[in-house]
């Protein structure tokens, strides 16, 4: 990749993340300290819940007064615009990396009869039947985002005579990949299924990802509960592009490594409370287990990704 392209990608990374999530740097050294990671995970959830209670207190009685001024529901708009304000984090499994902090989560989507845009995904509906919908989707691979939050660190290693030595350790850079795929959506009383197959069309990793997620939405008046679970198979090409270490990149800290294909699994739970027509209080917790080939990479420090967010969402 040329220097100009690198600069552009870097700027894109920074702008994208800062705009979409309001990232605040937390600079956590991530070289295998299990107790530290455990405390970090608890802190993530604790901070998220604290922010929600603070926002709810601020929300206060003003919205109760506003309850009388709702407009009547109109025909559904093609646009879905919303923003969630609160606090959350997604841990970063890479070494020498910072967690991804989320204080603002934007929801920008537009749904036409055939075409749609959904938070970065561009879709074309090929079939919309009573029981299923088939879409063609173009998207940006999400694995790349973790590489936006890596730093150069000096780490202490031992040489042959057991004398500590400081060396520079920087996680190699990776590019965003544009992927094209087909997506199947199905729903019924049994729940909601989203399954997709993607292939890189930008010549970055040239691999595949197969994905399926099941969720069940339970609504009890103002309360909404949504547990979900999913599987994601990543091909050898995709896994190796992001989590492998080329010989040209290898060092004493990051030896050369070739990753094979693997299966990630994930679970998440969302709880929402509808305060009024526009505002909802939300708490989300999620867990993703990385496949063993990615987790064994020298540039990966943790085999799991934890995420939590608590806040208020406004939907226009």
């Amino acid at each position: 990749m040329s220097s100009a392209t690198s600069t552009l990608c870097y700027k894109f990374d920074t702008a994208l993340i800062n705009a979409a999530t309001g990232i605040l740097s937390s600079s956590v050294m991530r070289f295998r300290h299990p107790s530290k990671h455990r405390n970090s995970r608890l802190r993530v959830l604790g901070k998220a819940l604290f922010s929600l209670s603070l926002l709810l207190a601020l929300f206060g009685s003003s919205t109760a007064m506003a309850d009388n001024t709702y407009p009547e529901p109109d025909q559904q708009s093609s646009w879905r615009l919303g923003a969630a304000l609160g606090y959350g984090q997604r841990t970063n499994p890479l070494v020498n990396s910072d967690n991804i902090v989320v204080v603002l989560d934007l929801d920008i989507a537009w749904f036409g009869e055939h075409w749609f845009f959904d938070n970065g995904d561009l879709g074309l509906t090929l079939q919309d039947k009573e029981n299923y919908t088939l879409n063609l989707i173009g998207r940006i691979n999400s694995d790349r985002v973790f590489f936006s939050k890596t730093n150069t660190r000096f780490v202490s290693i031992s040489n042959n005579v057991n004398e500590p030595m400081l060396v520079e350790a920087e996680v190699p850079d990776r590019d965003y990949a544009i992927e094209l795929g087909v997506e199947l959506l199905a729903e019924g009383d049994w729940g909601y299924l989203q399954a997709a197959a993607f292939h890189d069309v930008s010549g970055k990793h040239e691999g595949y990802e197969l994905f399926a997620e099941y969720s069940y939405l339970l609504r009890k008046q103002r309360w909404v509960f949504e547990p979900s679970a999913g599987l994601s198979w990543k091909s050898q090409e995709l896994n190796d592009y992001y989590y492998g270490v080329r010989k040209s990149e290898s060092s004493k800290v990051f030896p050369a490594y070739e990753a094979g294909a693997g299966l990630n699994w994930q679970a998440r739970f969302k709880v929402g409370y509808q305060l009024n027509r526009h505002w909802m209080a939300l708490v989300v917790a999620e867990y993703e287990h990385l496949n063993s080939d990615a987790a064994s990479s020298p540039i990966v420090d943790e085999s799991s990704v934890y995420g939590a967010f608590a806040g208020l969402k406004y939907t226009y």
Partner: protein
Amino acid sequence: MNRQFMGPLRASNTPTDMNRLSTTLLALAGTILAFEGQAAEAPVTLRVKPLLCITDERNPDCDLLFEVEWKSGQPGNFCLGDDGSPSPLDCWEDADSGDFVEQRVVDQSFRYLLLRPGQLAPVAEARVELMTIDNSDRRRNRRSRHAWSIL
């Protein structure tokens, strides 16, 4: 008390709905003309819980227990009604506060109205909002899986 809400009011800006609202208010005012009262100068508050009913394809209406409370700075004659039925739900004589509880099946938005004799305009009102979650387009329920979005 179980009570099916029958009021067809949907949007208060259309001529039909305005006519219906006027008729309702006139009927309510007529009912309470029997009460003697004096013009209230003091503010009147009307509190209703809950104010939101959420429906979707699986649950097209809400069966809710409504708690209505009103307070006035000055004693007087008051009637409580809603903008969907001509007869009052309850009336109070020479009172500065009152409460009313009812079980109601809601399938559209409506307003509780507190009226005084001789006045067409309600002295206080509270709107109960029906919010319908439209799940007919299943693409709206898909989750775009990006690391920068957590919801």
